[in-house]
């Protein structure tokens, strides 16, 4: 895909996107997924897992089966969903804001989610704790909405959105810090939430988060081809048949939905949103948003692997998954950055 198709026809330029890579990512995800659910402090046989999953005879029974179906499988699925959501949102934000350093938490979504979670944790009553996902979800969404409204007459204009996002994020963080200072017992739960945790996923969480995340991702995949137009100025995009403001709103709303859901299910997991899109773009040498599906699949694979590491590296203790994504993500990212600068295809 990097080279000219030298079939003796110099006039044919290389195809912009090769769907074989997407298929490859899907296969990789499946393979990694099976790997992830077979590893753990309790070891389960590869063959038995396959048999159990496909309902064939000779599968796992009893506690092992419960372990696979009710613990490992939802956790792997949640990791895949959250990874896909964060990677895709990151890529979309990078396009919309024309900024390669944008991440899904840019418009104050992270700070808003953190504030929502802190409110849930510090409010009296254990019932509110179980509502934590709802609080953090609405916290994230509200923060982004406020960013939009503050940007005022420059509604959806990338630079002003960015600035309002920073303002909203700072404010939310300040309120959150204040609440935490007044309720010091909340420090540990909030901190561990911030580091990101997939520790106890269950089918309930997987169900509702998959609904929102899949809706958001489908919206984004549908508009992915046109998102390329947002990389140009508004007039250029318009001349090529796009309504830039409308498209930006759709993209940011969908990306925020995905991010807010991911955050409320699993806390703040960093790096996935920045690193994975660049990884995929670096490997494929393409920046077109037709790669969104591949980026989603790559994000899913990345987080499933990271979660596997979180569970097994320091067994029986669990590493916070945010630590793994940072440790793995940062060096990879540096390598890709250097390659991009030195090589001009």
């Amino acid at each position, binding site marked *: 895909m990097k080279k000219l198709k030298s079939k003796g026809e110099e006039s044919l330029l290389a195809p912009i996107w090769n769907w074989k890579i997407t298929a490859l990512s899907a296969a990789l995800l499946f393979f990694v997924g099976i790997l992830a659910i077979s590893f753990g402090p309790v070891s389960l046989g590869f063959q038995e897992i396959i048999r159990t999953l496909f309902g064939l005879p000779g599968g796992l029974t009893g506690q092992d089966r419960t372990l696979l179906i009710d613990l490992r499988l939802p956790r792997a699925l949640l990791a895949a969903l959250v990874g896909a959501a964060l990677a895709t949102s990151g890529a979309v934000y990078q396009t919309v804001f024309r900024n390669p350093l944008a991440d899904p938490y840019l418009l104050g979504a992270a700070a808003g989610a953190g504030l929502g979670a802190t409110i849930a944790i510090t409010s009296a009553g254990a019932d509110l704790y179980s509502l934590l996902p709802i609080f953090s979800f609405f916290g994230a969404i509200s923060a982004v909405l406020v960013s939009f409204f503050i940007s005022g007459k420059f509604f959806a204009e990338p630079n002003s959105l960015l600035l309002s996002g920073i303002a909203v994020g700072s404010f939310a963080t300040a309120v959150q810090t204040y609440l935490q200072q007044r309720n*010091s017992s909340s420090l540990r739960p909030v901190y561990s939430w911030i580091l990101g945790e997939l*520790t*106890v996923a269950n089918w309930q969480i997987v169900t509702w988060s998959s609904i929102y995340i899949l809706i958001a991702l489908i919206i984004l995949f549908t508009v992915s081809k046109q998102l390329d137009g947002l990389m140009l100025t508004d007039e250029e995009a318009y001349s090529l048949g796009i309504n830039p403001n409308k498209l930006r709103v759709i993209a940011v709303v969908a990306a925020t939905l995905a991010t807010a859901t991911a955050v409320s299910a699993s806390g703040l997991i960093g790096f996935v949103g920045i690193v994975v899109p660049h990884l995929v773009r670096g490997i494929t040498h393409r920046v077109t948003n037709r790669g969104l599906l591949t980026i989603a699949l790559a994000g899913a694979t990345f987080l499933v692997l990271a979660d596997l590491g979180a569970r097994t590296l320091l067994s029986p203790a669990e590493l916070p998954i945010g630590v793994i994504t940072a440790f793995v993500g940062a060096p990879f990212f540096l390598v890709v950055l250097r390659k991009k600068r030195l090589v001009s295809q």
Partner: protein
Amino acid sequence: MFKVRKVLTKLVIATTAISLLAICPAQAASNLPKRIISLSPSATEILYAIGSGKQVIAVDDLSNYPKETPMTKLSAFNPNVEALLNYKPDLIILNADATKALEVKAALEKLKITVFLEKAPSNLREAYLEITALGRATGKLTGAQNTISEMKSKISAAIRTGKTSKRITFFHELDDTLYTATSDTFIGKVYKDFNLVNVADPAATADSAGYPQLQSEYVIKANPKIIFLSDAQYGESLATLTKRAGWNGISAVKSKNVVALPEDIPSRWGPRLVDFYEFIANAIAKVK
């Protein structure tokens, strides 16, 4: 003659056992978990005190008392369901303050493992109730009751020695940023039993949840007669207090009534509560 006696005795024992089994069949097998994991340092101490120690196969990485506990790398605050599974336990004692405690409990119960959710008690009465519950859960109810009565008598004795009618103020220091505990907390109530006056009480606000942070000026002004150092294990002592600006004017520092509490004693609400009470009684005696 003796043979008949032996046979008779065995018969009596057998009959009694069978009738007991008939009366409470549930008691016999399932109320005696044989593979207990304790993820709570206080619960661990209690289990060993009431006699369930032999049934414990693993404890968390903070359960360091008594010395013979089978300590592992399992975390009390971040329980890992799969790691627990590996031990094949039949009862897990889980701290209610652990991260995602309810979800962990649900997951474990799905895996058909009994979970005892241990909530931190807010006063002595609740502590005794929890000890009884632990006894019931591990089949050592009598052991629990014995432990409780021993604790009760020793604590009453300590209170009798130490209880003061004089107005003695004290400051309980949790850490060097001056977090403390008011009389609303378990620790605070222990001090209250001795009629000690907690300098933290007036500083309590609605949302400090019993653990406010005091300012250095405030402590100096309150001028406590005794200072209890819960952070002695982290290096705080009379010497370090003297170095703090303005603190050598405090009554407790001047008269050297600074008590370094031993590690873990104030944070465990098991049988070593007795030690805590006795420590306080001794400290008060020195002031009188």
